[in-house]
């Protein structure tokens, strides 16, 4: 029995000194390995007298458990110590500069188009498109603007052939024609896209963006037109109230025609939309001219409705305080980065348009 006691005392003594994990494991195998000190005691059991045997065996088992616990405890202790040390050692300096990360940006025109589509989507408009190259017929004649009409002067057109039959569309209105020729009424569409006029100065670019709207049904009148635009303008500028006025104007493809102004004031050199006693023209609209409906085989005595067209670039400028139209198409890295939008910032009905 004294052997066992001696083993235990020795172990206790050893465990007091500073040990690492492999040293403890070594001690473990010295005791419990195949020829370990404890294992060899078990081999003795057969040689002990029958009377003593039972007592010896039970004492040996107790000691064995005791020793195992001691060693396991020590292992645990060492492991904890190691983790603590590791945590201590691996502290990081978070004031160091971050890892470079490049996020791209969405162009303000694209963002504005998505905003516009989102607003009109909610009141039942779907999005249509048309080609950039148009026929002279779709761009002018079908829209009640015959050759020699002075209204054609307002459009400095880019032509693609000598006969002037093919051109770059000067407005998105030919999408009205395409949509109505393709389907049967009712129609309720918006059509954003690129438009072109041979004009270039501070406030004009040879390419710009427009969005066309068209709503044709049995009983759509000017009240619906006013309601639709009033809704759109409030939603787009994210205002509860807006000062808006309709003013008679002339477009060959609508009658009666109107230009729409919104109220604004200047505050610290910046345009503030909504209130104020100044007026800003933002779009043109009107009731689709019966001649246009006839041209697309829609019976004007049965169907009527409105159309509108507005400049997307200009809307973006007003909403986001951008001063120079030409910068839109200049691709200056600083400009794109400053005025661009995070691609995850998607305008939606439920979240709202802007952050």
């Amino acid at each position: 029995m004294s052997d066992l006691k001696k083993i235990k005392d020795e172990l206790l003594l050893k465990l007091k000194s500073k040990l690492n994990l492999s040293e403890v494991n070594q001690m473990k195998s010295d005791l419990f390995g195949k020829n370990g000190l404890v294992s060899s005691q078990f081999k003795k059991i057969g040689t002990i007298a029958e009377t003593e045997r039972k007592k010896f065996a039970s004492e040996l088992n107790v000691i064995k458990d005791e020793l195992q616990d001691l060693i396991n405890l020590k292992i645990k202790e060492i492991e904890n110590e190691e983790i603590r040390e590791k945590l201590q050692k691996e502290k990081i300096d978070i004031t160091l500069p971050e890892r470079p990360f490049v996020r791209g940006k969405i162009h303000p025109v694209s963002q504005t188009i998505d905003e516009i589509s989102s607003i009109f989507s909610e009141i039942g408009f779907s999005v249509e498109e048309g080609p950039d190259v148009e026929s002279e017929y779709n761009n002018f004649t079908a829209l009640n603007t015959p050759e020699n009409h002075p209204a054609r002067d307002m459009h400095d057109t880019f032509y693609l052939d000598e006969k002037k039959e093919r051109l770059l569309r000067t407005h998105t209105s030919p999408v009205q024609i395409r949509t109505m020729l393709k389907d049967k009424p009712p129609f309720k569409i918006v059509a954003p896209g690129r438009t072109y006029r041979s004009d270039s100065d501070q406030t004009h670019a040879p390419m710009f963006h427009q969005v066309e709207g068209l709503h044709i049904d049995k009983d759509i009148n000017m009240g619906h037109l006013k309601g639709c635009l009033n809704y759109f303008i409030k939603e787009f500028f994210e205002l509860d109230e807006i000062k808006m006025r309709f003013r008679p104007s002339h477009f060959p493809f609508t009658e009666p025609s109107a230009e729409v102004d919104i109220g604004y004031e200047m505050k610290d050199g910046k345009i503030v939309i909504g209130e104020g006693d100044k007026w800003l023209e933002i779009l043109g609209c009107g009731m689709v001219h019966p001649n246009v409906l006839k041209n697309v085989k829609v019976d004007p005595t049965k169907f009527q409705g409105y159309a509108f067209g507005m400049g997307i670039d200009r809307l973006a400028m007003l909403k986001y305080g951008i001063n120079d139209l030409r910068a839109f198409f200049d691709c200056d890295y600083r400009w794109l980065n400053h005025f661009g939008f995070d691609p995850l910032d998607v305008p939606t009905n439920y979240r709202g348009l802007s952050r």
Partner: protein
Amino acid sequence: MKITFDWLKDHLETNLKEKNLLEQLTNVGLEVEGVQNLSSDKELFKVAKIIKTIKHPNADRLKVCDVDVGEKELKKVVCGAANAVEGLITVYAPPGSIIPKTKTKLVVAKIRGVTSYGMLCSEYELNLSDESDGIIELSSGYKKIIGKSYFSKSKSNLIDLSITPNRPDCLGIRGIARDLAASGFGKLIDFKKKKIKSNDKQPLKVKIKKERNQGCSIFGSCLITDVKNTESPQWLKDKLISIGQKPISAIVDITNYVMFDLNRPLHAYDADKIEKGIIVRNSKSGEKFTALDNKDYKLEDGMCVIGDHKGVLGLGGIIGGTRSGTELDTKNILLESAYFKPGSIRTTAKKLNLDTDAKFRFERGIDPLSIEDGLNKAAILIKEICGGKISKIDIQKIETYKTKIVKFDINLVEKIAGFKISTKKILKILENLGFKFKKKKNFFELTVPSWRPDITQEIDIVEELVRISGYDKIRIIDPIKERKKSTLSKSQKLFHFLQRSIASKGYLEAITWSFTDSNYNNHFRDTKKEIKILNPISTELDVLRNSIFSNLIIYMNKNLDRGFKDLSIYEIGPTFTGSKPGEQNTVVCGLSSGKKSRLSWIEKERNVDVFDVKKRCSPNFN
């Protein structure tokens, strides 16, 4: 179209203020583009006479002038104009006045060491014309009013209106007054029309040739003999100056006055310079004439010319010629008042790149029944101012004006406008606008006034009624939030996804022109057809792009020149495969330049390489 409230009051009886006028003009569709204050500061501009000039001691081209401005002392003014000579009567702007063209305020200033008290003005500086070569030369008639204001004492501002192309009738003051009166802004004054009383026939033979596409359908004229062309009386000069026109001579001023007042363009010929008689005909290719703008024009086939037996006198309805122009010594005048067809005017003016006040009016459509009114008014004024004897009016025509009748169902107003106007009010408005009406069973039969070429069908009548009643009467009908069809199509959804997906991978979205430089385009064109633009805005943007690469490379390069190095840009948009509508594809194109990463405490330096691109191109796009 420039007007003043004062001139409007010749035709309109009203007690309302100018502020109300500006609002009402816009409300009826005659948009006010700008208002220039003429009264307060323009009174400072005085008629003055140069008494003495000496060469500036320190400058070869400058003169120091002693100027009589109607005060006791002469003013010393430094002037650089070559025509600033002793005895010239001109316009003087004192220190403190604001020059209309440049909007700069004059101060007493030393010019090369000599103090100048004010300035002598050119027509350009006073917004009277584009003539900036030399200072204004006024005729001796102004001698009497040296020291008085050059501009009329009218308190009326100059109002600039933007008249839409469908409203030629509003290119005359009376038409504007009529619209205003119909909308309840005052009452249109009804004049007793004065008529020429004469027993003499107009002796010059006028013939309109019956040719194909003859651009002139009616030619009215009268002869005024023994006139003395002079300067216009002050009231007439003031009127023209008040709307920014320059007085020239009584005859020219009167024809201009009638044009602005009644929208009736006229032309005055020196009758003695007309060879035998007037022939209105199509031009022959190669014919030449010198127009009143002192330019020579070579004509093509089929332009409407007014000629005599010697050749071309002028382009009908566009511009007269120098050969038969009136001068101060003109004795006998043939006054023309005609109807030219809008299409013919437009084609000719476009080919010759000519723009005149008359052309602007005729191409929009002049009242064909205003021919005699114009001749009567102008001839009587000429007689009053220049004396002489007027002949009877001669009218030649190859077509007769047919009055237009439009059937009108009153219910259409509410159907289109969404609000009701009472029958009584509807008829009142139409009457004030010059319509005549007959009641039929379910509709009215309206006779359209001859000055309204824009009105041809029922919807045009609705527009008139809604416009005159006021668009503020249209009530707002809120939209219903209901979606029956999906907003985006499948391809639109894909577009939207790609656009945002690429941006999320570090690319900046660019929007570049759909056209590009053919030199760059050729590198990316492959076998695609080059699509030339007939009238490009510049030679660097002469073709439609076959690929987006050319533009992205051009702009990438600009950014590199700006000093930005590591850059990824992309565009999603059209590329073109042909010049027919629909021969285009929507393409995404990206461009990366520089380093993917730069050496730092945490990263190694690495260039953009093909494997970055591969990642973007992989089919599942992630």
